[in-house]
């Protein structure tokens, strides 16, 4: 009977996620130790996808919090339902309720709107909580997260501390656009995702595009490996690889040769900035294609 590690490895592959042994180990640890996982790496290497696949494997809800500059506790944790509170206050007008009674009357769970973080700790079945691109949020928001990540609880001043009914599997991702605090890092397991090597990228292409011709898959993977050696501002990730491979399959292409469609499709699918387009001329792409 496969152990937990082997089982997870198989499950990831069944869900078309090709993971290295160290990532499988980290994911196993995350489940065993019930600790959040911080994944860093360049955009497009498959960080967010891990959370989605974990939710599929465990057949549980995926709760996603997309971070951005200015994200506050009201959007991420909880908010009061103001319109209902106002209505309630109006209805209490005729009564003789004291200030304290009114306060308790409108600041209770009936008026509480759950946002992703609060939702995540109040699920009956363990969910996957994806806190995506945490580096985009302000430093102050990181401080809000600390209580959740270490004790799996959220304190609401009007109601008290709400403890998790089930411990969510927390995945935080970061593209490294700013340094995260040590406090946040220390609460998490850590994994850094590199761009895949040739073998892994080939496996990913076959897993995601099962109908692809073998030669084309090999050449696409080889092309991408060579392209990443260029000094580009935005290196193409796995998502770009798959987009390009799909575009080539749509045109029933089975081998990469230096023709106009392949050159133009590679530039439009794989390059994301004007600088990179200027740097990697059609001529340069042609040269790479000729080496395959």
């Amino acid at each position, binding site marked *: 009977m496969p152990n937990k590690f082997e089982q997870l490895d198989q499950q990831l592959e069944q869900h078309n996620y090709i993971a290295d042994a*160290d990532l499988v180990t980290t994911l196993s*640890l995350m489940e065993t130790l019930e600790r959040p996982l911080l994944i860093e790496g360049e955009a497009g290497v498959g960080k967010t996808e891990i959370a989605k696949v974990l939710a599929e494997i465990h057949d549980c809800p995926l709760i996603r919090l997309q971070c951005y500059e200015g994200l506050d506790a009201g959007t991420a944790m909880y908010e009061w339902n103001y319109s209902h509170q106002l209505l309630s206050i109006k209805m209490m007008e005729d009564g003789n309720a004291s*200030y304290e009674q009114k306060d308790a009357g409108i600041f209770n769970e009936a008026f509480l709107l759950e946002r992703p973080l609060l939702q995540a700790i109040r699920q009956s079945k363990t969910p996957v909580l994806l806190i995506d691109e945490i580096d985009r949020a302000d430093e102050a928001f990181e401080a809000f997260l600390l209580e959740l990540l270490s004790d799996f609880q959220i304190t609401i001043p009007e109601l008290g501390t709400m403890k998790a009914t089930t411990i969510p599997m927390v995945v935080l991702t970061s593209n490294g656009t*700013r340094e995260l605090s*040590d406090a946040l890092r*220390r609460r998490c397991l*850590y994994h850094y995702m590199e761009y895949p090597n040739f073998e892994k990228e080939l496996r990913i292409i076959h897993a995601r595009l099962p109908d692809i011709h073998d030669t084309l898959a090999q050449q696409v993977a080889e092309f991408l490996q060579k392209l990443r050696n260029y000094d580009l501002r935005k290196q193409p990730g796995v998502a770009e690889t798959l987009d390009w491979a799909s575009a080539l399959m749509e045109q029933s292409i089975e081998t990469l040769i230096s023709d106009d469609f392949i050159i133009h499709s590679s530039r439009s699918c794989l390059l994301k900035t004007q600088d990179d387009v200027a740097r990697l001329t059609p001529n340069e792409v042609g040269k790479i294609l000729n080496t395959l």
Partner: protein
Amino acid sequence: MNSTQPTDRIIGFIHFLREKGYTVGTQEILDALSSLGTMPFDKKSIKHILRSLTCHSVLEWRQYELLFNLYWQSKEIEDGTQDDGPVKDINHIPPTNKLTGFSGSSHQVPELVKDMSNKTSVGAGRQNTFSTMDFRFLKDQKAMMEIERLAELLAQKLSKRLSHQHVIRTKGSKIDIRQTIRRNLSHGGHPKQLFFKQRKRKPVHLVILHDVSHSMAWNNPLLFRFARGLIRAFKSSEAFAFHTELFKVTDFYREPSIEKMRVQFEARNNLWKGGTCIADSLHQFNEKYAAKTLNSKTIFIIISDGFDTNKPEQLIDELKAVKDTSKKIVWLNPMLGREGYNPDKGTMLDIQPYIDKHASANSLDSLKQAISYIAQVG
């Protein structure tokens, strides 16, 4: 590996990591030991488990493999389970924090600078000392790294200071319902007094020109991080570096990895070498970039000691052109405030009427003051 004492070996390895600058607590040791019972018990799994638990940054992650292999190889030789080989002395691997930043870079610091900076050394973690300490007296590598980090954080704080979005006010266009309800409960819930959110302030537009000539060598590791912090905090800002010519460096500063940024800088530009032609460089800026980058809200920051081989009149002409199309010109001078430096003579005296602020940039405190000024006028 010798499986007779795995616990001791793992604890020994974690201690070794601590010596190399990794922050690993007792909880991580306990977690490691408890996890090993649930995973395949082999060297590879141990390596992966300990990496997830002990690494907290990409630098630690990348150095880990080397440290793990060195430690285990040396222990296997001790046990006699592996032949003696060319094992590197494990104590000679530098701590991870020495691998980041410009201070840890391989660039050649001129001898003159070395002499000047050898006078004093400070320990890491003494923030009060750091605040007022002149950058040129910093010799200790760890202290330099810390100052670099603080300089970048300081720059980023300016962004926070200028983008406080939800200041509660009693006038405005967007009602803060939460505050309105809370503060009117004493009136029975009637919204007698409305509270408003302040409108989001438009981000400040900064253009930075950074002197990377020989005379600025000892200041630059820190001022680079400071400039980098500003550029990363203000998304529409632009940065240029110059010595005898000007080159655009915005993309370098936006690079998330400091190590990559350093490599890119060193690969493409002649840093900390040669003389300074401030006026020529400004002329290049005005010719090529000013129309696209300057506007009436721009705060134009020049980071330089002001030692210029061009004539002052030429610099004045170029500064006039910049002043006409920008909001403020701030000159951050690492020499200002240092003994023996007189700003009231030479180029700096001549250009005073054409700049709005001539501020010191030789310590964290002076950078804080510069930040305060930019926050005030931004």
